[in-house]
Structures are given as C-alpha cells and as structure tokens.
C-alpha cells in the first residue's frame, strides 16, 4: 500500500513543472557549489604545499645565523585540509590556515579573522553544505506542504480512507516520496565526494568514513525533520495555501533569520576583542613584565640570575658553563607562554560562549544544530581551528626551545655572536599536525546531535498525529 502511495506521489511530482524546476535549479546550484568548493580547496592546497616547500627550503639554506635570531626569522605552521572540506569548508576560508611561529610571541596574525569567527557564518557561501542546509528544506516543504491538505480539499482523502489506508501508511508513503525527491539532490553531494577523492588529501581525518556517514545521516535527519513538519502542518490546516504560507514562514525564520540573529546575539553578549587591541595586550603583558625596567621585571631577572648561579655553583655569569643570554631568552619564553595561555584562553572562551549562545537558538532552528555537526565532522569548525592553533603553538614552543638550547649549550661566551649553520637547520623538525580524533569531535557536538534528533522526533510526532487527526476530521465530515 505504501508502495502504491509512493508511486502515485512520485508520478504527481514528475508532472508538476514547479517541482521539476525547483529541483533542477537546486541540483544545478549544488553541483556548481561542489565545483566551486573543490576549486577553492584545490587552490588553497596548491598554494599551501608550495608555501610549505618554500618555507623548508629557506629555513634549511639560511646559512650561518644565531639560533635565536633564526627564531625571529621564523617559520610557518600550515593547517592541512581534508577532503571533506570540499563538502563543508566551514570557517576554513576565513580563519586562515597559516600561523607564523616566532620567538617571544604567539602570533595573532591569522587570528584576526577569528575575531569574526561566529559573525562570518552569517554570510552565505556557495558550498554543497550551504545549498543543502538552505535549499533542501525548502524543496522538502514545496513537496510536502499540500500532502494532506490538498487530499482533503479535493476529496480524495475520503476515497483513500475508504480503501483501507491507515494514517501511518499515508504519512509514510507521502514522507518517503518527498524524501526520495529531495534525495535527487544527492548528485551534488556525490560530485563533492568524487571531487574530494580526486583532490590530493593533505591529511586524512581520523575515522573519515564514519565522519562521511555521520554527515550524510545528519543531513538526512535534517531534511526528514522538515518533510515531517510539512506533512504535519499540512494535516492540521484546512487549506494547502495556509500550510505553504506557514511553512515558508517557518523556513525563513529557522533557516535564514535565526542563525544570523543568534550569531548577532552571541557576539553582543560575549564580544571578542578587536585584533589590534588583542595584539597590543599580548605584546605588553608578555614582554614588559620580563624585559621592562619596572621593579617587578628587574626583580624577576635578578631572581633568575641568582637561581642559575646557585644551580651551577658559580658566582658570576662569566663563570657559567652555559650561555646565559640563551638561558634568559628561554626563561622569557616560559614566562610569555603563561601569559599567552591566559590571554588566548580568554579569547577562545569568548568564542565558545558565543557558540554556546548560538546553540541555544537551535531549539528554534535545526539549521544551527546541523551546521555545527556538519562543519565539525568535516574538520572545518571553530574547534578544529583551535585544535590546529594550539598544536601549532605547542610546536612553536618546542621549536623555540630547541633553538634557544642550541644557543645555551653551544653559544658559550659568544652569546649572540654564536652562529649555527645549515647542518643544524636541516636537522630541525617540521610541524606535523594530527587532527582531533572522532571521539574528541563528537564530545563537542553531542548536544547538537541530540537537538537535531529531537527535532526529527517532534516533527515525526507532529506529522503522524496530524494525519491521524485529519482522518478523524474527515470521518466526521
């Protein structure tokens, strides 16, 4: 019986020029988005791979140089892209994928975009994920808004009921038919996946297959929620036009306005500092208290000197078996690292508060929950970027320590005049980024998953109870 309903619904859809046109336009947009996204990721990858190669070549061949000077000369950490970012680039385009690693400073250059991390989500970008998040629910609404209301309007509901069809069978037949049509958008997803595979994968995300399955399942649940809601509303109102107006209104609020409004509210309640303000704070709080002329800074340096003399059992710096300048530089690094941790924790805290505020609004907008899940599984969300930035910072600290230790151990009395050569540079390691595991990712988005499932469950109940109600109403007519 469900098969018969499915067949009839699909036949009606095929003959409805409006649906064919909307489907064609959405599909074209989806494929264009996949190509656009693939091209963008390819370009980014090409540029990044070239930059990594250049960075290493320059570092290896910088010639004779003091190790600490070389630490200022610096290197870059590049965030590798995954193939899934073709489907959902998330914040990748905006948050930057390179961090300059230099001594004494956790460089905020690539964090300038992070300041707008939540706000930038407001801007639409032609990606397969965005097309599906925005247009697939609209298509589901167009397919299902008349599902029950039009049956009642034209009198066929009574005929259907007299054939022994149950409310559940009618609901499932119509729901599956609408989902089948929305599934015709799959070529855009398939295009994204095929293009992803053809893209040189800089890094394999842990459990990439499970992530892909999770993305597909999340979008299916999201679209099903809208389809069920459309059937439910269609069953509750007397006219299909009323259902269409109500559902398009809901779509506009839930899909378009609410995510933007939520990000505005989030950034107003928990504002992130301006880039210049943030940079100035980092510099002043990490440098002056150590190198400055304040009593506190002088006392700190005197204490370090006293400690190191006691440690080596000598009376003067000149008697030390190590290079004291290098030692002091490393001590300043350790001091600054504590400052960086505190200030960056405040910054990330502000972003995470924004994200938590936005998440509250997913109670009225499943699009927010889906967006969080999609970009997290694709490895392109805020948490993925933080993970990369923190890993790069750990590498910077190790790298600067390595250079300072070279100066401490090999510098002797030469100090800043000590020069390392290419043999040393060529032994230095590269930044080897390991993205977060799937369980790490899920621990950040489990609430979004619950909310999305809750949406689908409530929409299912609305639809099923609605169709049952419409059967009762029709029987009484």
């Amino acid at each position, binding site marked *: *019986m469900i*098969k*018969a*309903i499915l*067949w*009839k619904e699909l*036949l*009606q859809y095929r*003959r*409805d020029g409006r649906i064919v046109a909307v489907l064609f336009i959405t599909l074209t947009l989806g494929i264009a988005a996949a190509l656009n996204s693939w091209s963008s990721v390819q370009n980014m990858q090409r540029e990044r791979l070239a930059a990594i190669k250049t960075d290493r070549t320059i570092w290896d061949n910088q010639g004779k140089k003091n190790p600490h000077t070389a630490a200022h000369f610096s290197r870059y950490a590049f965030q590798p892209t995954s193939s899934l970012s073709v489907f959902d680039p998330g914040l990748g385009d905006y948050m930057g994928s390179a961090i300059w690693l230099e001594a004494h400073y956790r460089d905020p250059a690539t964090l300038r975009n992070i300041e707008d991390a939540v706000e930038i989500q407001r801007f639409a970008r032609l990606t397969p994920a965005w097309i599906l998040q925005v247009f697939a629910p609209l298509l589901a609404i167009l397919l299902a808004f008349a599902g029950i209301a039009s049956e009642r309007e*034209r*009198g*066929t509901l*009574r*005929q*259907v*009921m*007299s*054939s*022994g*069809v*149950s409310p559940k069978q009618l609901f499932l037949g119509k729901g599956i038919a609408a989902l089948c049509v929305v599934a015709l958008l799959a070529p855009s997803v398939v295009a994204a996946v095929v293009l992803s595979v053809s893209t040189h994968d800089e890094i394999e995300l842990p459990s990439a297959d499970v992530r892909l399955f999770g993305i597909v399942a999340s979008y299916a649940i999201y679209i099903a929620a809208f389809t069920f809601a459309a059937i439910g509303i269609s069953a509750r109102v007397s006219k299909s036009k009323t259902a269409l107006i109500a559902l398009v209104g809901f779509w506009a609020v839930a899909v378009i306005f609410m995510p933007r409004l939520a990000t505005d509210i989030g950034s107003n309640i928990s504002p992130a500092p301006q880039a210049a303000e943030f940079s100035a704070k980092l510099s002043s709080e990490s440098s002056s208290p150590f190198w400055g002329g304040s009593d506190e800074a002088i006392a700190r340096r005197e204490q370090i000197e006293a400690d190191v003399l006691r440690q080596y059992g000598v009376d003067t710096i000149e008697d030390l078996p190590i290079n004291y300048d290098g030692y002091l530089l490393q001590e300043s690094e350790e001091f600054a690292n504590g400052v960086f941790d505190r200030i960056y924790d405040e910054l990330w805290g502000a972003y995470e508060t924004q994200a938590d505020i936005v998440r509250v609004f997913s109670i009225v907008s499943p699009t927010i929950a889906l967006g969080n899940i999609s970009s997290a599984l694709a490895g392109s969300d805020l948490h993925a970027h933080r993970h990369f930035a923190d890993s790069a910072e750990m590498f910077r600290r190790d790298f600067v320590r390595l250079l300072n230790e070279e100066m401490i151990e090999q510098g002797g009395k030469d100090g800043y005049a000590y020069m390392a050569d290419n043999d040393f540079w060529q032994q230095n390691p590269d930044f080897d980024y390991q993205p977060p595991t799937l369980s790490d990712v899920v621990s950040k988005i489990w609430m979004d998953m619950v909310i999305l499932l809750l949406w689908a469950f409530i929409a299912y109940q609305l639809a099923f109870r609605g169709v049952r109600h419409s059967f009762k109403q*029709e*029987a*009484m007519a």
Partner: protein
Amino acid sequence: MSSHDINNNGRTSVLQTINLRKTFGEVIALEGLNLDVSAGETLCLLGANGAGKTTTINLFLGFLEPNSGEALVNGRNVALAPVETKKELAYIPEQVALYPSLTGLENLRYFAALAGHDYYSDTELYEFIERSGLRKEQADRSVSGYSKGMRQKIGVATALAKQAKAFLLDEPLSGLDPSAANEFAHLANNLRQDGAAILMATHDIFRATELATRIGIMKSGQLVEEVCPDNVDASEVEAIYLNHMRADHADLEKGEAA
C-alpha cells in the same frame, strides 16, 4: 455462519446493521437501526437531510465507531475488522474525487493498488474501464477535464477492480445530467444482477424506484418503513415518503406549540 448472516428472506446478508446506534454529542444520528442487504439486492435509503443515511454509510466504512450495535459486512463486524471489511466494499460518493494530474487509468491503478490489487495489467485495467462505460482513449486523458459522470465511471471501474461484494453509493446520481444518470442507473443494475449488494442513499425517489429491489425510508436515525418497488410505483413511494415527512413536521409543530 452466525445468525446475523441470514436475513428474513433466507438469503445471505452482505451488508447488515443490528441495533446500530450513533450519537454526536446530544444529537442522535442513528437509533437502533436494523437493515440488511443481500447479494443481488439494492436497498435505497430515502430520507431528509440528517435522517442518518450518510452516517450509516460512514459506519459501514469504519469512518465512525458506533455507540452500540453492529455494522456487519459479510458477517464481519466493521468495528473489529475495519481494514478487512473495507476490502469488500466499494464506496462511490456524490462526487468521485480523483487526482487531476493523473489519467483515468492511473487513478484506477492507484485506487486498485490501495485496495491490495496491484497486480493488474493495463489490459485488465482497460477492461474495467470499458465495463464502467468509459472509452479507452478517455481513460488515457487527464481527469482534470472529466465530467462528473466520467468520474463516477472511474469510481465504478475502481469498484470492479476491487472485486467488491458490496457497494455503498452516497447520492451518486445527484448533479448528473439525465443521460449520465441513465447510464449510471444501467451500470448499477448490471452490478446488482452480477451479484453485488448495493446500499444507496438518495433523495431521488424516481431513480430509487427504478433501481431498488427495496426502498427504506429513514427518519430520525431509524428505518421507519420498507417498500418493495415491485408492488408500488414512484408516485406511491413518494406519497408514502411525504406522509412520513409530514408526520415529522406535525410532530415538530406540536412540540413548538406545547
């Protein structure tokens, strides 16, 4: 076979009600209704609006649940086996509702499949179409351009495809032009002669006299009189009917005066 299955004529009841009662809040729609229709019989129910004709049909269709009593289809209680009994029934309302973007054939295929008959070939479906009086080329057209009579024929074709034992016709002749009404009456007679049990609710006394093997007059949810058209003509049926309606009117006036 239960005692319910044999009516007073000793024939097998296909459609039967036993002390059927249905109320809608304070309003009594049916009050202890007893009727039966055997295979090869047409029972036409005459009655004013609100007499309980459509409620009776809705109870047979399982759309409503009775307060008490039973509606039986081939001896099965509709309330206990609503899906199974629907498979034995064909329902043709005043306006047969169809899907305008589908052809007549596609509508037939859909409704037949809903009733569990999804195995028919096109040839078989065309046969049902032709038996209902519609031409093959008409069946291939979108039903958006169908007349009411053509829609009724798709309804009949659906009933034939369902292999229904019983037909519930709710004002099927209302609004049909004389030619279409004649055609439909002819079809209904053929169905009855082929062994169908037909229960028809109508206001049309003359068609009822022409089609029915028995005419039941309903008033206030009860079957107040049964007439055999073999023994009376249409004008006599009309007189009997009006007599009941006048009595009803007099009762009303008496009540108002009191």
